[in-house]
């Protein structure tokens, strides 16, 4: 809010305090962005379309984690476990009961909400690193249950799921998937933005690091924490369900601890405490390995290092994360805001204060 604005813009109604697109520049900018997003699948090839879909899927999970970690300040390392819970709920319901997507999706959400309560309970007593470790334990429990199901039912390589079907129409085309995922991601972002500009979102931001004060102001800290866990887990499990349908395949191996780290990286690299940050982080982390690969090809290192491509990827990823933590703790959003401020104030210079 203390971001500079062009002069001559004054608010005259309270409603302008919470408008998402307040000025004409913002509205035009968003319209352009929306037009590009809608036009993208008609220009992108299969490979790029798949990457775009991955970004959209990741952005749902990243926004969910941002609500919990970036806003409410609750560290969770159980994110991959929650995605797995959503995916396995879908897989199991499909395999055992041939349930259609309009059953599996709400079921995944319900399982996510229930797990949110369970993941959230330790947060009432534990903080910081201890909380992280307890959520990590739950991650392993979910993964264990998933792989038990796989081996007991003889799906040792994973559970194969048919694409969602509505009447005679099945969702298989990557372009159709793109629009479905775009709608899901948009709904998630809008829902999250709405929460953040009302009572619950403020309570989450209040308990972030100042629980005692929040309590003294009449906020039930327990309630706020649990609601953050429940909302975040529900959204994550829904993302897991979509992931299962998109890949058509559920396997415990897909939900490793590295996936959790990737999501944590998305919210940190994107910039904690910002929905836009979650989106930028999702784009960055999903594109990163492709970028590394392209860079290696371009520098002709690919031939010599082809056997090491995964190792190079991990190393570069870790390095980038450290660089962000040290040099740009506000993440990509911090950079974005500086660029915005620079253009708004040009030809003057601004030195950011505080914040």
């Amino acid at each position, binding site marked *: 809010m*203390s971001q500079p604005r062009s002069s001559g813009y004054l608010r005259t109604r309270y409603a302008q305090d919470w408008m998402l697109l307040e000025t004409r520049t913002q509205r035009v900018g968003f319209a352009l962005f929306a037009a590009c997003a809608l036009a993208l699948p008609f220009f992108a090839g299969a490979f790029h379309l798949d990457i775009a879909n991955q970004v959209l899927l990741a952005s749902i999970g990243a926004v969910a984690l941002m609500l919990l970690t970036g806003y409410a300040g609750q560290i969770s390392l159980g994110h991959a476990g929650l995605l797995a819970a959503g995916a396995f709920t879908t897989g199991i319901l499909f395999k055992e009961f041939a349930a259609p997507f309009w059953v599996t999706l709400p079921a995944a959400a319900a399982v996510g909400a229930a797990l949110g309560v369970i993941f959230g309970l330790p947060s009432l007593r534990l903080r910081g690193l201890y909380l992280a470790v307890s959520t990590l334990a739950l991650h392993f429990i979910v993964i264990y249950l998933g792989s038990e199901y796989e081996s007991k039912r003889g799906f040792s390589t994973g559970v194969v799921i048919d694409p969602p079907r509505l009447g005679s129409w099945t969702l298989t085309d990557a372009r159709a998937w793109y629009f479905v995922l775009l709608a899901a991601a948009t709904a998630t972002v809008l829902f999250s933005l709405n929460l953040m500009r009302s009572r619950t979102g403020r309570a989450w931001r209040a308990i972030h690091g100042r629980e005692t004060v929040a309590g003294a102001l009449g906020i039930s800290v327990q309630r706020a924490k649990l609601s953050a866990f429940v909302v975040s887990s529900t959204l994550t499990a829904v993302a897991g369900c979509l992931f299962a349908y998109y890949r058509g395949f559920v396997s415990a191996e897909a939900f490793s601890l590295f996936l959790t780290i990737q999501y944590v990286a998305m919210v940190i690299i994107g910039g904690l405490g910002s929905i836009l940050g979650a989106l930028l982080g999702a784009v960055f982390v999903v594109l990163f390995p492709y970028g590394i690969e392209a860079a290696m090809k371009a520098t002709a290192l690919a031939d010599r290092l082809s056997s090491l491509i995964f190792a190079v990827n991990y190393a570069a990823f870790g390095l980038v994360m450290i660089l962000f933590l040290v040099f740009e703790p506000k993440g990509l959003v911090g950079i974005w805001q500086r660029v915005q401020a620079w253009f708004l104030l040009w030809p003057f210079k601004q030195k950011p204060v505080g914040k």
Partner: protein
Amino acid sequence: MADNLKLEGVSLAFGGLQVLQDVSFETRKGELLCLIGPNGAGKTSILNCICGLYRPGSGRITFGANDLTRMAPHRISRLGLARTFQHGELFAHLTVVENLLVARHARIGTNIVAEGFFTRSVREEEAVHRKAVEEVLDFTDLERYRHEHVGALPFGIQKIVGFARALAMQPKVMLLDEPSAGLNRDEREDLARHILRIKHELGIPMIWVEHDMQMVADLADRLYVLDHGEPIAQGRPEEVLKDHRVVEAYLGTRTTMA
């Protein structure tokens, strides 16, 4: 009868350290009650006991018909007890308006699903509370900072924001923990003006922990003096400040060199 906050024989110990011993007092309508005492006397501990952050070992704290002694902090504050903190303790990453809106949390009745869709009723309720916040900003002269992030404001302004945040709860009793600490002379005068306006225009009783004896002597209606957790004097400022035990507690006793 107006609800009075009443402490009866409150004692608090941390292990072997006796922090409060048999503290008893009561607020009176529209009265400015000042808690004073040397560092470590237990003034802030009294506020923490009232707010439910500490649990007294014995004694009772009541507010009207409610027993606060074992109540959760957020329930206590919802009864109408608002406090400020010695070091501000503001939400630095929120704007001034948002900080004050947080204080109205318990008064906003929207549910999380409606909020997710930002329905018309949510928007209407937000506007009502936004207006209430604006009135507090007007009362405390903070309008020009309303959309600033609190972390970027000077310390003196932050303290006033903390004060405004307590006021935004529309409390029945205000607990002020050293509101003047770290403020310069101008800012103290502003603060004194706000405190007097609350007393005279809103009639809210205040329990005020203070170190600035000049402010205490000028503003307080009644003093309650603690030393090492024990009450040593109470009464009107002009009498209490002359009391030899109070002078001793602050300045020590005269000893003759042998």
